[in-house]
C-alpha cells in the first residue's frame, strides 16, 4: 500500500458528521467493533466552549465525538499514564502532535506500554484557550452562541457560524494583540504527527470531503487495509499534486512557528544576565507553589518527586518556594519537554513556563541533536551513559 492516501467513511451519516469525510471516526468505530482495541480515547465537545476527555468502549459513542475541537487542549498523554493501564488493555487515542510526542517520551520512560496504544494523529496548526477565544469573539463582535466551530486556514482564523456563514480574520494581527493561539502552539515545531500510526488531516485534499492520511507504521497499514476490506472506509491514492499541496501547507505552518520562535527566543537571548534574573526571579516570586505545573507536565512522572516537601529540597510551608523549585524542574524536564504548553496553561499566576522549558529543550537539541517524542528507538541523552566525550 502506498504511504499517502485520501480516505473517507463509507457510511453516509458518518461522512456527513465527521470532518473531512469522517475517516477518523470510521476507523475508531471499526476498531471498537472488531475488538481490535478495548477503548477509544477521544475529545467530546460540550456546549459553547466546553469539552471533555471521553473514554468509551461503545462504537456508537464515537460518532458523537466527530470533528476536531480547536479549543480543546486535553492532556492525553498524562491521562493515559495516570489513569489507564496500558498493560491491561488496548486503546486507540486521537492525538495532536504534542500529545503523541509526550506519549512517545513516556513510553521511553516505561510509563506507557505503547504496544497497546494505537495512535491516530491529527495535523495541527494550533489550539486556543477557551478564555482567549471568548475574548477574541468579543473583539470580533461574534456571539459565542452563534459559533459552530473555529478553524485555522494558513494565516487566517476561521469562524464557522451556525447559520452557515463563514468569517475569516488575520491570525497574526490577533496574536500580536495578545489573542490568538496558545503561546506554545505559535512556537510549535511538529505539525504532522508522523510518530503516530496514522497521521490524518485536511492538508493536501483538493476537493470533496476526504481525509489525507499518511500511513506511518505497519500496524497502521494493517488497520486501514482491514477497514477497507470490510467496506467501512473507501480510499484513493494521493496524487503528486495532493502531496505537494500538503507539503506546502506544512512548510507554511513551520515557517510561522519559526518566526514566533525567533521572536520569543530572540527576546530571551538578547537580555543581559541581570535582566534575565530580574525577569525570571521576579516571575518566580509570584509563585504560590500550587504544584500544578509539575502535576500536569506531560513528561513528569516520578512517583516521589524531588520537589515534594519531605525530599527537603523545597521547604514545606514556604511561599514563594525557593528558586530551587523552578530551576530544578527546568533541569528535569529540559530533555523531554515537548512544548505542549500544559504547564503554562495551568499556572494561576501566569508565569510563561513553557517558554523557558521549550527554549531549554532547544538547547538540548543543539547539544545532543535529540528531539523529544519523534523516534521511539532513540534514547534520551541523559539516559545514555556511553562515552561520547
Amino acid at each position, binding site marked *: 500500500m502506498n504511504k499517502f492516501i485520501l480516505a473517507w467513511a463509507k457510511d453516509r451519516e458518518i461522512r456527513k458528521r465527521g470532518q473531512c469525510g469522517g475517516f477518523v471516526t470510521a476507523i475508531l468505530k471499526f476498531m471498537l467493533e472488531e475488538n481490535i482495541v478495548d477503548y477509544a480515547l477521544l475529545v467530546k465537545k460540550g456546549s459553547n466552549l466546553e469539552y471533555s476527555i471521553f473514554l468509551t468502549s461503545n462504537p456508537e459513542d464515537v460518532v458523537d465525538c466527530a470533528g476536531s475541537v480547536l479549543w480543546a487542549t486535553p492532556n492525553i498523554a498524562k491521562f493515559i499514564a495516570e489513569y489507564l493501564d496500558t498493560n491491561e488493555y488496548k486503546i486507540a487515542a486521537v492525538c495532536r502532535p504534542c500529545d503523541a510526542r509526550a506519549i512517545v517520551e513516556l513510553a521511553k520512560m516505561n510509563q506507557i506500554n505503547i504496544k497497546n496504544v494505537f495512535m491516530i494523529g491529527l495535523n495541527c496548526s494550533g489550539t486556543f484557550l477557551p478564555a482567549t477565544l471568548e475574548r477574541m469573539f468579543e473583539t470580533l463582535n461574534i456571539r459565542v452562541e452563534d459559533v459552530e466551530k473555529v478553524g485555522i486556514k494558513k494565516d487566517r482564523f476561521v469562524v464557522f457560524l451556525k447559520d452557515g456563514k463563514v468569517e475569516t480574520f488575520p491570525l497574526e494581527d490577533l496574536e500580536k494583540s495578545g489573542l490568538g493561539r496558545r503561546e506554545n502552539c505559535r512556537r510549535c515545531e511538529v505539525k504532522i504527527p508522523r510518530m503516530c500510526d496514522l497521521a490524518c488531516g485536511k492538508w493536501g485534499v483538493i476537493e470533496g470531503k476526504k481525509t489525507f492520511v499518511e500511513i506511518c507504521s505497519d500496524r497502521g497499514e494493517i488497520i486501514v487495509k482491514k477497514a477497507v476490506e470490510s467496506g467501512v472506509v473507501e480510499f484513493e491514492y494521493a496524487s503528486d499534486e495532493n502531496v505537494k499541496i500538503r507539503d506546502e501547507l506544512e512548510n507554511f505552518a513551520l515557517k510561522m512557528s519559526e518566526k514566533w520562535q525567533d521572536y520569543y527566543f530572540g527576546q530571551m537571548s538578547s537580555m543581559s544576565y541581570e535582566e*534575565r534574573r530580574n525577569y525570571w526571579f521576579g516571575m518566580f516570586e509570584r509563585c504560590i507553589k500550587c504544584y500544578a505545573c509539575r502535576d500536569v507536565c506531560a513528561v513528569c512522572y516520578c512517583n516521589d518527586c*524531588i520537589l515534594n516537601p519531605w525530599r527537603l529540597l523545597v521547604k514545606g510551608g514556604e511561599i514563594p518556594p525557593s528558586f*530551587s523549585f523552578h530551576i530544578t524542574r527546568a533541569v528535569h524536564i529540559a530533555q523531554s519537554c515537548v512544548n505542549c504548553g500544559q504547564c503554562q496553561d495551568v499556572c494561576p499566576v501566569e508565569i510563561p513556563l513553557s517558554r523557558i522549558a521549550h527554549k*531549554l529543550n532547544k538547547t538540548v537539541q543543539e547539544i545532543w541533536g535529540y528531539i523529544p517524542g519523534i523516534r521511539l528507538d532513540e534514547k534520551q541523552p541523559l539516559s545514555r551513559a556511553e*562515552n561520547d566525550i
Partner: protein
Amino acid sequence: MIEGQEEGKMEEWEPNIIVIACNWCTYQAADLAGSLRYSYPPTVKIVRVPCSGRVEPEFIIEALINGADGVLIGGCHPGDCHYKNGNYKALKRFELLKSVIEEFGIEPERVRLEWISGSEGLKFAEVMKEFNDTIRKLGPNPLKWKEINSV
C-alpha cells in the same frame, strides 16, 4: 542588599567556593595537595561524594541559591571512573545545568567540571587557584535565596 555589594565593602568580600569531589580521585588529590604543601585558596570547601555520577543538578542549584559563589565538580578522568560511567553521566548533566542557569541569568562560569586524578595534587591546587580568580572577577553571586526571601 547583598553582602559585599555595598560600597567600600568590596575588599572584604571573599569568594565562597564549594567543591564536590569524587572520593576516588579529586578528594585524594586534595589530600595529596595538602601533604605535599601545595597551597590552595582557603575559600574552597570540599564536599565528598562516592563518584561524580552522584552529583545531581539539584546539589549545584542548592549551593548557588544558598550563597555559594562558585561550584566545582571534580571527577575521575574519562575511562577511570570506579563505577564505569559515572563521570560521563556527570558531564551530561553538567552541560545541561550550565545552559539552564545561564538562561536564568546566572553566569555559567560559576560552575565548572574538572577531571582530577588522585595523583594530581598539583593540578588540584592550580585549578582551585584559577577558579578562585575567576569567581573573584565575577564578584559575589547575585542570587542568594535566603536574603532575597527575608527582604
